[in-house]
Every structure is written in structure tokens, then in C-alpha cells.
């Protein structure tokens, strides 16, 4: 799964998620609750609990992609 696909799933939207370095906070409809859902979905996908350090690094779409590649 790619970050843009995962983010769209979390937002329950069909809007085009901007690629790369776009900050998650700047995506339309993003809020702290979506952030929690993102962390929980990522934990399911990568099969481990994310550390606070992992979570702190999740700032952009690209960061989500980097984490997904560790799965």
C-alpha cells in the first residue's frame, strides 16, 4: 500500500492526495483524530507498535511512504 492510498482511506475521501513532501497537516480534512487513525493503521500494516520517535517523524506524505517501506 502507498501512503496516498492509505491517507485517502483514513480521510474516507476520493480527493487526490498531494504527493511527496506535502505536510499531512496541510491536507484538506486532516486533524489530530486522523493522525491517531494513521498511527493505528500503520501499526497494523507494519505489524508492530510505533515508537514515539517513529510517530514524531510522520510529518509528510513521504514520511508515511518511508515507514510503509519498512513493512
Amino acid at each position, binding site marked *: 500500500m502507498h501512503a496516498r492510498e492509505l491517507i485517502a482511506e483514513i480521510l474516507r475521501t476520493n480527493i487526490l492526495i498531494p504527493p511527496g513532501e506535502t505536510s499531512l497537516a496541510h491536507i484538506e480534512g486532516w486533524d489530530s*483524530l486522523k493522525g*491517531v487513525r494513521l498511527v*493505528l493503521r500503520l501499526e497494523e500494516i507494519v505489524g508492530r507498535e510505533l515508537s514515539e520517535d517513529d510517530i514524531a517523524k510522520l510529518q509528510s506524505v513521504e514520511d508515511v511512504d518511508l515507514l510503509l517501506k519498512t513493512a
Partner: protein
Amino acid sequence: MTAPEDRWVIVSGAGGVLGRELVSHFAAGGRRVLALDREFGITPPPGVTARAIDVLIEADVRQALTDTIPAGASIALLINAVGLIWNEPILTLRGAKFATHSLESWHNVTNANLTAPFVVATQVASRMVRRGGGSIINFSSIASEGNAGQAAYGAAKAGIEGLTRTMAVELGPLGVRVNALALGFIDVATTRSAVAADRLQAYVQKTSLGRLGRVEDVIHAIEFLASNTFVNGTIVKLDGGLRL
């Protein structure tokens, strides 16, 4: 996949009359139960882990969860039964002077009926979201609609209904359902000590079913809310039709 009986049930207010009945019910069904309260008048049933803590203290609640529930284990159900019935009028006459509702008792009652369940629910929810979701059942009262002599209690119970709906909206997407029971008069010792016998009889006469609620009625409602996975943010009124 974890078998349902391996998932924990937590009861706050477990030392109270109703709380003890709920703990016994779930323990008898083979569930793992963590009972939380300031004190336990009687020894909990076998298999129940009882922790005597002040559930207003977030760190103590967190510690009790960490100490009792293994890291990989999940919590299926929180029955958030902590609370305190309180009767005190807004204004009363003491001799020839007006006296107002004590601010101290206001804080005590809102702490016991709103802040304490909030603390337990938030700590438990943070465990539930990472372990397959779960169900939280808060305890409201028909006093949330307004009841003379119960300003603090009624306000706290109205607050718990708002908290329930808000938690349902926020936590539903994370797999945690949050509902509440709004209890009428249940036939337990705390009701009989809080309400004078003649007044209680008057309530029974006004109730379309003509009786007080039974502990089994509460248990059936809890089983429904815990098992029906499409119920979320609902306040189930359990008053026998008193407020129709």
C-alpha cells in the same frame, strides 16, 4: 484471534452495590475482570483482580491497567459504574437564612460522576484502540433531564451523556463504541438509602411497569450494549417508563 473470554472486562465503581453485582456476573461467566474502586467492602469473587485506587488519579488508573493486564492482552468492555448519588437543593432555609448548595459537595459529586468516569474511560480507550477495539458503557441517570434536589448529580449525569456521545464520535473510527445507560430507580440498597420509602413508592406508582428496576435489567442492558456492534453513542433509558 483472541477468544472473547480471554478479553478483559473492567468495572469501575466495583465496590458499590451495583458494581459488585456486575463483577460477580462477569466473573461467573468466566471473564477476566479487573475491579476498580477506592475500597471493597467484601472480598471479590475468585478470578477477579481488585485494585483499591482513587480513580480520579490518572496515574493510578494507568498503573492499575499496566500492572494487571498483560501488554498483549485486550480489553473487551469497560463498565464505568463509578458514581455517587447526592441530594442537595439549590436553595434551602437554615433557620431564617437562605443557604445555597455547597460548592464543596458540587465538586465532590461532579468529580465522582463525571471526572472519574472520564479518567477511567480515556485510559482504557487508549489501550482498546491498540488492541482490537472494545466497548465502553457509562452510567447516566434519568436525573440528567432535571430532578429537584439533584443539581450536581443531574448536571454531572447530563455531562456524562455529552461525554458519551463525543467519545462515540471520536473513538468509533478507532473501533471503540461508547454508550450509556440512564438508570431510573433500581432496587438496590443505595437507592433505598437515598430516596425515602414513601417517595420511592410514589415513583413506582408513576412508573408504567409498576415496579423498580432489577439488577438483572441492568445486566441485560449491558449485555446488549456490549454485544451489538452497531450501537454507538446511544443513551439507553432504563426506567420502566417513569419519564414518559
